[in-house]
């Protein structure tokens, strides 16, 4: 299970729907990073490990 989290301009971490598909999680995170709307984007696993950060 992968959860995408993003840091908004006001320095608050948010998360969205969790997914089992690692490619979908990674590509969603890249899309968020590419929007330029967020200070940071990351993907974390169920046990809290960060597997992607941008």
């Amino acid at each position: 299970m992968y959860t995408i989290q993003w840091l908004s301009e006001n320095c608050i971490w948010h998360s969205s729907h969790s997914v089992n598909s690692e490619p979908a999680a990674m590509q969603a995170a890249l899309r968020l990073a590419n929007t330029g709307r967020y200070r940071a984007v990351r993907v974390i696993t169920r046990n809290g490990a960060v597997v992607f950060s941008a």
Partner: protein
Amino acid sequence: MVSERHPKWITVEDYAGDADMAPSELVSLILDGLLPGERQGNRWYVAAPHVDLVLPQPAAANTAVLKITACALGSYVTAGRGELVVTLRADDPGRRVALVALDAAMGKHKPPRLPLAVVFNEEAVLFDSSLWVDLAAALIEYEALINPTFVGLL
């Protein structure tokens, strides 16, 4: 032959710059099978997604549009040269149902089932597996805009 300016391919350098990442990280994702892309000549490219999320009114994300590079034969849709436009509405429960269905269909231990029926605004569309990852990623991007869950302060 694919030229460098072909819209289907984005150099990892350009893509990484937009995402504020190192190009080598994108190459690793490609090699791990987590991002579509390939090496052409001496450069690495990311395949442009088949699904774009467009916000007609960026200040109000209640409605958005998915522009899908696809061929449609009736309600059956597969990745291709045409364009399919699907409207997303924040109050449409089918959007979240669609994301759950796509995620389940992409499960590691399930054989691909073609196609997957997804309902947006009470209209069913049969999506070929060539579009599942891009569609799921675009739906997550929209969820991030309209339905963020507070996690904590930095």
